[in-house]
């Protein structure tokens, strides 16, 4: 008996295109291709007709014309004489600033809350559950608006800080006179260098050499410290005795950076009330603060859930085994539980970072000048180039998202379970 595995021989019939599995997938794909091509050509035809009717064209040349508007928060030099492309850069930097600080803050909050939610302390566990549920189930827009309204309407006006002879000022500065929260913004001290090394012009913006030097020294300290710890581990493997490294680490971290800061003449310029407003220091806009606080608290609730799920996914046997080997609780967490939990935590963490970055576009609610505020807001309205601006805006967000997810995927692959 032969098994009927031979393909039926015979002439090709048209119905085989649909019923024969050898051809069906090609039929479907060709039909899909034709439909997609038709839809695309229809859309492009409409686009061309509509643009022609309005007398417009697709041209990105507007990016190199004068922007003519001011931006209230700029990380690099910008005036209203700069180009629209420059405004785009300012917006992009503002977006990235709030996104990166937000991710950092949200991670801190999320990890803390996630672990506390598993605490054996009944009260703390319940409080953290309430925090997570309340923040997860209410739109983030509400937290942004509420934070902004509270910051601008509850805080005192700058002149409440005015010191009049023999009278107590109406409002006090915090942290020993270094931080003042007014209804115009938060004034914080500004780090300055009296023996500054100057700036390097990168063509697009200036980079402070002082900052580069500090970063270089910190990276150096980190590398030296890692070497010290590695050599300690080698000694331990060879002799069984681990040499004490804590004082070396402390020395490595506590000496070079402060010495560099001293050499550069590091000091803080405190904000002070003069005339009608604060001078000196940095004024942080409330739109930035509100956005940062709201996004990190909101996303923190989601990260807390991811952390909790990750820690709970590790079977209690792992902890018990570590205790049986005599590891103390701290090292059990650091060496046994966390490395395993991280694998579970990282994928949802990536998607939360992505969500936070995309949610920075809600800056529109508090008029923070992010990418959408400059490129997708004022530039769009001034030049009337909706199509180009929206294409650029979506493209940039897409690139940011893809970069974050690919970087985090590389990290995820590095800590992934290495299976045999």
């Amino acid at each position: 008996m032969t098994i009927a595995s031979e393909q039926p021989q015979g002439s090709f019939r048209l119905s085989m295109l649909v019923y024969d599995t050898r051809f069906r997938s090609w039929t479907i794909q060709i039909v899909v291709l034709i439909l997609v091509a038709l839809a695309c050509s229809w859309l492009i035809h409409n686009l061309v007709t509509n643009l022609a009717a309005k007398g417009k064209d697709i041209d990105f040349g507007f990016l190199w014309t004068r922007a003519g508007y001011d931006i209230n928060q700029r990380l690099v030099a910008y005036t209203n004489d700069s180009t629209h492309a420059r405004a785009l850069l300012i917006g992009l930097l503002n977006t990235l600033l709030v996104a990166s600080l937000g991710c950092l803050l949200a991670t801190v909050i999320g990890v803390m809350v996630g672990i506390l939610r598993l605490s054996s302390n009944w009260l703390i566990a319940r409080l953290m559950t309430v925090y997570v549920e309340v923040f997860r189930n209410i739109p983030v827009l509400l937290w942004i608006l509420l934070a902004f309204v509270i910051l601008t309407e509850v805080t005192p006006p700058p002149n409440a800080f005015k010191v009049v002879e023999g009278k107590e000022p109406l409002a006090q500065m915090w942290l020993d006179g270094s931080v003042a929260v007014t209804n115009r913004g938060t004034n914080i001290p500004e780090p300055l260098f009296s023996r500054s090394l100057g700036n390097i012009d990168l063509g697009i913006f200036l980079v402070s050499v002082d900052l580069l030097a500090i970063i270089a020294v910190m990276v150096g300290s980190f590398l030296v410290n890692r070497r010290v710890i590695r050599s300690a581990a080698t000694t331990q493997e060879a002799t069984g005795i681990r040499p004490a490294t804590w004082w070396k680490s402390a020395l490595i971290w506590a000496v070079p950076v402060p010495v560099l800061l001293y050499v550069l003449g590091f000091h803080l310029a405190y904000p002070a009330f003069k005339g009608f407003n604060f001078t000196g220091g940095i004024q942080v806009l409330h739109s930035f603060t509100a956005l940062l606080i709201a996004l990190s608290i909101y996303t923190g609730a989601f990260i807390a859930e991811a952390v909790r799920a990750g820690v709970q996914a590790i079977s209690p046997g792992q902890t018990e085994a570590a205790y049986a080997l005599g590891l103390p609780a701290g090292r059990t967490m650091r060496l046994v539980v966390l490395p395993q939990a991280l694998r579970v935590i990282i994928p949802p963490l990536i998607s939360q970072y992505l969500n936070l970055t995309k949610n920075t576009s809600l800056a529109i609610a508090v008029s923070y000048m992010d990418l959408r505020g400059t490129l997708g807001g004022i530039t769009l309205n001034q030049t009337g180039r909706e199509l180009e601006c929206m294409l650029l805006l979506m493209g940039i967000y897409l690139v940011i998202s893809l970069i974050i997810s690919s970087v985090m995927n590389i990290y995820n692959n590095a800590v992934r379970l290495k299976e045999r």
Partner: protein
Amino acid sequence: MSEIHAQTVRFVRETMLPPAVPPRSEAGAVRWLRENLFSGPVNIALTILGLALLYVVLQAVVPWLMHSVWNAKSLGECREIVAQTWGPDASGACWAMIRERWPQYLFGFYPQELYWRPTLAFLLMFVALAPVLFSGLPRGLLWFSAVYPMLAFWLLWGGAVWWWVVVALGFVLAYAAFRLAVQRSSTIIAGAAALAVLVGWSLFAIDPLAALIQRVLPASIAPVSSDRFGGFLLSITIGITAIAGSLPLGILLALGRRSDMPLVKMLSVAFIEFIRGVPLITVLFVASLLLQYFLPPRTQFDIILRVIIMATIFAAAYIAEVIRGGLAALPRGQYEAADSLGMDYWQAQRLIIMPQALKISIPGIVSSFIGLFKDTTLVAFVGLNDPLKGITQVVRADMNWKGIYWEPYVFVGAIFFLICFGMSRYSMYLERRLKRDNR
């Protein structure tokens, strides 16, 4: 051994000792407090910290709630009443604003005499949802669920009933075409036939046919234009429609992404990754600014409809990824079992793969739905009056209520919380009900 044994007194207990009462420190509230709140120095510190936090929050919130004012004409009057009743330093909630403005929060600027229509649609929604959500109810009710979308849109926007009847007729015809074709040829041909009927019907038949019947037999209610919509009416309309639309679309996208056909797979991946890579706001801006460029000149396209389409597409990309996870979690044997039973692709999906994959992805799907419902507040940025920003801005712009901020946000937040929390609890119930312990 034996000598020693001989000298010892033999003792065997023949009765049980009566159970003793546990020591006082090991029972009742004392034990619970010690174990749960004061089991060690770290725990004691945490408890004290927690109590302090609780005290700080409660001592601000409780008096504020206790001193609520429900009858006032303006914020100033509210504050006067609070100051008169509870002293000059007391703070109190001014719920009088909600009392005066709640119709706006619920219906936006919907005509007041027509409030019964959205209310009726909302109540009927529960009747339509019940048989979908709870399997214990009679299956005949599902017919009502199928008719409900048309009925609800008619009630909300008004106009001639015939238009919606003709739309429903189109679905019936498409279904009939599908049944007819599926008996003679494959599922794919049948699906294409149904789609062709639907497209042809909506392009050529709906408007003339509806107009014709309307002329012969006029039956219409007062139409309401989209700019009158607002508040939770708007949120729920957009939210429910987009939720209902995004699930099937998401399933199709997930299947496309796992398809063997390279072109279908590539298109699905590109679509999903693009939508997931951009913020919803930009997608909404595309709906409000750019859509007119891509449609034939002079096409009028309702803004709420545009927003609903965009929100559906946006949510579908996220749901597709969730369902893809569920599909990936299914053991390969399930697919092979379906093949060995001789099922074709759609039969296998419908009877074997999807029921299991969807069950696995319930938590993710529901949290996508919750996210979508929360995101309906973003429609404020394309000029619609959502309850959170749109209506609250209207209220805060009123001279009487200028400067009010806690009350509107607490009110809107509480309603969002109730709905979203309810959805997440329902997903837990569904997970429990569908749980089979064989996995």
